[in-house]
């Protein structure tokens, strides 16, 4: 099962959980699976049309993927990391 790494700003819905193993075979599938367990998570990553928010960056096994590849496949042991720029003066 892939593992989803949740950045600190998005751990409100997950109750602080940082790494979540899910049964899914795509990036979108992982996000939806996390949201099924922790409602509210998906809205932080995807907009109302199911596209990745502009301010979110996705990595698969450490490699950045374009936001358009939200349906990219994931396999056993793959790591999906979600980053969001959070800071601001």
């Amino acid at each position, binding site marked *: 099962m892939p593992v989803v790494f949740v950045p*600190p*700003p*998005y*751990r*409100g*819905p*997950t*109750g*602080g*959980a940082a790494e979540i193993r899910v049964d899914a075979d795509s990036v979108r599938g992982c996000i939806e699976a996390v949201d099924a367990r922790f409602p509210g998570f998906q*809205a*932080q990553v995807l907009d109302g049309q199911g596209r990745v*928010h*502009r*301010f*979110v*960056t996705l990595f698969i096994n450490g490699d*950045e993927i374009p936001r358009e590849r939200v349906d990219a496949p994931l396999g056993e042991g793959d790591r999906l990391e979600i*980053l*969001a*720029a*959070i*800071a*601001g*003066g």
Partner: protein
Amino acid sequence: MGGPTGDRMIRVDMTKQTAEVVPFPDAWKLLGGRALSARILLEECDPSCDPLGPGNVLVMAPGVLSGTAAPTSGRISMGGKSPLTNGIKEANAGGNPGQDLMKLGYRCLVVKGQPKDPGKRFAVEVDAAGAKVVPADAHKGKWNYKLVEDLAGSYPQTASFISIGPAGEMRLTGASIACTDQEQARHPARHAARGGLGAVMGSKGLKYVAVDPGKARVRQPEKRKEFMELSKKYTKDYLAGPLMFKHGTSSVVPVANILQTFPYKNRTEGQSPDVATLDGARIVESFATRGGGMHNCMTGCIVQCSNVVHDRDGKYKTSALEFETLTLLGSNCAIASWEDVADLDRLCDEVGLDTIETGAAIAIFMDSGGMAWGDAEGAKRILREISQGSELGRAIGNGAVATGKLRKHHRVPVVKGQALPAWDPRPLKATGITYCSSPMGADHTAGLIVNPGLPQDQWVRASQEAQLVNAVTDSSGFCQFLQPNLDDIRSYYGLLYGEEVSREQIADLGWNCLSDEWEFNRRAGFTEKDDLMPECIQQDAIGPAKLVWDVPQELVAQAYERLPLRPEMFAQKAAG
């Protein structure tokens, strides 16, 4: 220690209008920026003084690494007793003055005294030959952009400027200190904004400081080759990374809104219906047709988080239209258009005001029925009128508490007299502990933790570690948006001076800075009663989860007790 030698400092006496260059103590070599300011203020400023009187001390201190080839290392700290909080204050800015002072080997300016005639204006001119105080009455009352435009005719193109606008000259407690950026036009767009230090500068009759490095070169570390290799690797790694701030902090608007920390209508709600029109993505979209774009505010910066915003005719309007400004002058006032916020940002930069404090004050005025929510033209009118000295203009320029008093309004969201920034303590409890315990008052740059799911038993440590990491960062000259960690900073220090700096030493530098500041505040009369979150934030619930500030005060008190060091802190990035 090896490394740069012969460093000096400039002592300015505004009572006598003299400037003296003296040696910089070797014992302070690892102190810069915020830590240096804190040490000087604790040793040389009476914490019980009148912040706008002759006894206050204004410090201008670049960071330890400023003026070197380390990337994005030219930040400068302004320090003094704040007329807004009545405690110690450090406000940090970019632009070029920090780099230029350090290239000349000047570690800081320390400005004391006050001219007998409060109507006189002076300037300090700094170059390789030394420093002197000169008359500046001709520039009295000028807005910052006009001032710099006029100064450009009198100083070389290599000079940078530190200045105040009319707000500082009027000693308004929301007044900022402006630094010019590295563009050819030298926009006075980088502000050491929080806490009213512009009023302190104004109380000393000081209208501007001109720093001309001429042909001065970058500072040479003791281990030059290794320093350059580290800088090249650091830059390469950073540029190969996710570049989180490539579109500036304004791009944070939508995610802050999701997290219930995009305050609306004087913080009565945590989300705004205007998020789409205040989103920094709209600013980025404007570049295609109007010009402008992203740039670096100081020479040597690799982050380039600053935006240059043009108007509909393609002309320059303002620079560094940031998340905090879009929130406090936008959403918090129910002003929906980023274009209006850009106008307000320009006006604040011209008059010399903190956009956070000013936005909070205008929102209080609106909330109290003084004007309609969303009245952008009304807000612009007030800012334009500030220099005319109207009662309302003075109140707004004096910030949230003054405006609340004028309007007899109950909802005044401040800690230690300083307005809460955009990052709201109701969803972000650990950040709220920073606001309550930091010597700075409500200041997100003192230690921001954006982790809504963090368990309660980790809040105190998270706040204390963030405060320590940010104190060291703000002493180093590094910009917080480069996101260095303590191991990065001590590596650079070690190569600069040729002696390893241990983890314990770098952590002690941060803790000692906080301790100096807490001690200053204690002597100024602060007690635990000053660490309280305002009632409105304890009572006004936001979001579907009805979030309020309900953190036990005992947790705030624990932030003052030093926790044992843990390895994770040294890898923690600065965040503010």
